[in-house]
């Protein structure tokens, strides 16, 4: 895990210039420090903001939107100062609030058109784009129904549609899977991933669920007690650390070691564990399977040899 000392720039590397640059941002509410000297540069197209409840995720998001003015430090979003140019920033960003904030007496279509209007789209374009985004989130058949008749999942999708109707460069999603059942959560995570991969919209998503971030984001920033404690790129292709595995054997371990070695794998003993290495992840896994089969031993546990992302981040979240 790459940990960034508090106060030093923590860069989540990507291809382009930073979408969001945060420099020494501190925000206090009375005696409570919501953000404590957070410094980071977010360049990836999908960044997860991870932290326990009260870690400062929502405050940081609202500061990025220019809705909260930092006591110290500054935030630049898409090259604009979030505090001084908050109006321009908000017009270019999309925001999906954590809590349900939808007008219950409006239809999904009317709301999305209205929010497009408010974010500067010409009326005719807002109407066209409302149809497009409601189609994209799977609400094209329900667009004329009142929001109060929607399920929680449909409301969240409406919430997402209003956040992207104006074709924002960056959309901020505050706990988008909150309150969703497993099926709704699955749909929402798929939609969120599509934003950055298919629709070309950069995503900054907060969550306290690591799996949600891991499935939808390219990088993760971890907050704890208002401080930035870790940043990490999520390597979807599998990195060096994921090639080797450690296994726990039930049965004759020496037989397993002999068979694995015969298959060209390297095996080392480490306490109760055997560390197995090979040329690539697939060869290692196949070799472990075949060696166990041939040696007639059982595998009670199989894990990546190095610390997992989960190990890293759970430790950082605290």
């Amino acid at each position, binding site marked *: 895990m790459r940990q960034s000392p508090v106060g030093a720039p923590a860069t989540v590397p990507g291809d382009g210039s930073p979408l969001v640059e945060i420099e020494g941002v501190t925000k206090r509410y009375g005696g409570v420090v919501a953000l404590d000297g957070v410094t980071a540069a977010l360049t990836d197209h999908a960044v997860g903001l991870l932290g326990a409840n009260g870690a400062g995720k929502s405050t940081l998001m609202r500061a990025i939107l220019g809705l909260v003015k930092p006591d110290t430090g500054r935030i630049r979003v898409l090259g604009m100062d979030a505090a001084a140019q908050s*109006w321009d920033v908000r017009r270019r*960003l999309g*925001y999906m*609030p954590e809590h349900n904030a939808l007008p219950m007496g409006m239809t999904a279509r009317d709301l999305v058109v209205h929010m497009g209007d*408010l*974010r500067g789209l010409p009326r005719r374009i807002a109407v066209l784009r409302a149809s497009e985004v409601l189609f994209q989130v799977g609400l094209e058949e329900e667009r004329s129904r009142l929001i109060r008749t929607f399920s929680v999942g449909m409301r969240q999708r409406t919430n997402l549609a209003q956040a992207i109707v104006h*074709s924002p460069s960056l959309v901020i999603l505050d706990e988008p899977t909150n309150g969703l059942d497993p099926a709704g959560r699955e749909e929402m995570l798929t939609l969120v991933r599509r934003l950055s991969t*298919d629709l*070309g919209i950069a995503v900054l998503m907060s969550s306290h669920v690591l799996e949600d971030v891991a499935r939808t984001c390219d990088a993760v920033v971890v907050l704890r007690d208002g401080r930035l404690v870790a940043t990490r790129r999520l390597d979807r292709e599998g990195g060096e650390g994921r090639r080797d595995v450690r296994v726990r054997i039930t049965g004759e371990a020496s037989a397993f070691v002999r068979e694995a070695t015969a298959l060209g794998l390297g095996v080392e003993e480490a306490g109760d564990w055997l560390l197995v290495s090979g040329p690539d992840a697939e060869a290692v896994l196949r070799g472990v399977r075949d060696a166990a089969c041939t040696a007639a031993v059982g595998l009670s546990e199989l894990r990546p040899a190095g610390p997992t992302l989960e190990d890293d981040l759970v430790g950082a979240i605290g």
Partner: protein
Amino acid sequence: MSSDARVVDVAFSRYDGPRSGRGAAIWSLARWSSLRALGARRGWKVKVIPIALTLFAFAPAVVVLGLRALFGSSSFTEEIAKGLPYSDYSSTVAVVILAFSVVITPELVCPDRRDRTLSLYFSTAISRGDYVLGKELAALMPLLLVTLVPVLALYVGNVLFAVHPVGYVQDHAWDVPRIVVSGLIVAFYYGTVGLAISSLTARRPFAVGGYLAFLVVPAVIGSVLGNALDAPHLRLLAFAAAPIHAAEGLYPGYSDPQNIGPWLWGLTTCAIALLAVAVLAVRYLGEEE
């Protein structure tokens, strides 16, 4: 099927065209809010009351102009027209204006608090100040339907039915600005006070009750104490009547049976309107975004 028919994929496209400015966002908020308060894109039950009240507000003008249309220009119809001077129109339909504002203004702000939509609005190009301005415009526009448009319609009708229309316009040239200003005063007052009281609660019934209580209870107290103590100035507590008397004072020949000058009514109107603006500022501008 036409040979020009095409199958079009509803795909997501990027929009890189021009975006409208802050004024357009405020106007959009005002337009959507006022139309929804009047019942647009909602069920017929919501539409009935605003439409009925608007018709009631036009009724005196329609009656006067209808009689003139039926009986032509005669001394009888001239007397009828004089019986409804422009200065008295607002007081004639005062109850309608009050009822209209009670129906409209809570609808403009209470649902936003109830549904917590404010956070959604403030995440767009709308700031807190813009929101208040948009809602003020949203209150003003429908209220002008009952405070200004009927009087203007009466004026236009009187011009058309006059024996010498050009002469009528020349003789009543100053009535048009008086009609416009008095209509704006009454609409702004009822709109701002209604919004201020409605901003104190997320529940519409409470807003309606509070609004009526604010306008009616002090008036009753002022009237009772004014009579008992022989202190006519206590009648200034009739907050509902204040803007109407102030607007009437714009016309020549204003006479107040209670011997309270139009300036005092004007001051009362300004004081209450400023108080309402202060309440709106505290409720919306004071909270951190």
